[in-house]
């Protein structure tokens, strides 16, 4: 049993890696996508919005396959290194693109929800654009995006197990191998890993929301 739990832990480390790397890269990329979709240069905003629509409108599982297999099938040669590291890399790239698009919409909603008057009040007080952004609107924006970001990030925790579709040996895949041999309990016990992880995140986001509760 301890051997099995050890294997499950190894699998869950893959989930955590995908989770961490996706967060680190998709948040800045999401900001870029957000600025692109809000750009006053119409062709750019149109292009970015179409891209976001495609990514949000198709299953992540399909995107994983396209990213991993697509280049090879198109005869470009696969960009992914052989073996496990290549599979992990492909999974992270697919997750980053997918989540950047979701985050960009949250960021856009946040930016648009800060009243125009806040920006104008800063201008009239002689502040520069960066000063207005960092000193006036940023914190209001953060306060507004924390709850939807929390939701999205919790979804990401569970989505990481989709990486098994391109043979990443994450926790569900590992447990499934036991199930195929007739041993069912490892599969059900994976729930505990996810529940604990999500529980910690929930506490963290709750704490952060309370931190920002001092203003409206």
């Amino acid at each position, binding site marked *: 049993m301890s051997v099995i739990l050890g294997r499950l832990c190894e699998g869950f480390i893959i989930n955590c890696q995908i989770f961490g790397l996706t967060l680190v890269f998709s948040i800045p990329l999401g900001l870029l996508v957000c600025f692109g979709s809000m750009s006053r240069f119409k062709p750019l905003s149109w292009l970015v919005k179409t891209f976001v629509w495609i990514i949000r409108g198709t299953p992540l599982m399909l995107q994983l396959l396209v990213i991993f297999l697509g280049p090879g099938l198109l005869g470009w040669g696969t960009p992914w290194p052989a073996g496990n590291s290549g599979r992990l890399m492909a999974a992270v790239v697919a997750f980053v693109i997918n989540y950047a698009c979701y985050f960009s919409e949250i960021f856009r909603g946040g930016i648009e929800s800060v009243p125009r008057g806040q920006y104008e009040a800063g201008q009239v007080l002689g502040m520069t654009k960066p000063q207005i952004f960092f000193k006036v609107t940023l914190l209001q924006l953060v*306060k507004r995006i924390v709850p939807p970001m929390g939701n999205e990030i919790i979804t990401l925790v569970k989505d990481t197990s989709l990486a098994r579709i391109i043979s990443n040996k994450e926790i569900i895949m590992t447990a499934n191998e036991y199930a195929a041999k007739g041993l069912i309990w490892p599969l059900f016990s994976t729930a505990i890993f996810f529940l604990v992880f999500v529980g910690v995140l929930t506490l963290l986001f709750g704490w952060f929301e309370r931190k920002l509760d001092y*203003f409206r």
Partner: protein
Amino acid sequence: MAILEVRNIEKHFGNTQVLSDISFSLEEGQALSIIGSSGSGKTTLLRCLNFLERPDHGSIAVKGGVIFDASDPSTQSEKDIRQKRLHFGLVFQNFNLFPQYTALQNVTLARELLARERGGENRDAIVKAGRELLAQMGLADRAYHYPHQLSGGQQQRVAIARALALQPDILCFDEPTSALDPELTGEVLRVIRSLAEQKTTMIIVTHEMAFARDVADQVIFMDGGVIVEQGDPREVIDHPREERTRQFLARYTEN
């Protein structure tokens, strides 16, 4: 010499002409009231003075120096506009206080940022000046309150202190009491009245006719984007010469 000289300002949004041929001047230490019905262009005029909108035509001079001229692109560089804005202060109808800062921080923030940029004043001096301004607004005991913990009247007084902190040459008010419950307008009007007594140069857009008559040295009545009548408040409000002014004022005395 007039501290503010506005000449032939015009502004349109798309095809609608919102301001046409607006000219007036204001002497230092005087208060100007602008009255007029909804949609007559009062807010747009104040926004032009504060460079939140750019007039399509005309010029604005402060203390004899032209700070904006629609026909002279050299007066319109993005960089200078920030400096030029500081000639004016603007108090918004709906306050627009920064919610994440206390009353005192709202008042000191911009001045601290400017001081950091230019050197000079230290932080303690700015905070001290901020406290004095709040005290002057009758809010000495509210310095550490956040905007959502203050009543509308208190919020608007914080906003006035915030605008005064940068010591603008001309302080503009856009219907400063319109968003307030009737019982809270008095405290804000009292503060503006005391600023007038201290000879603060002000432009006040207001629907409070009695207040405009008492406090202002000059009144402008606007309708459809033009100045219909201007002059001494007792003349314009009590003995209007123009038919349009009479109709507007009659509507006011009815309600």
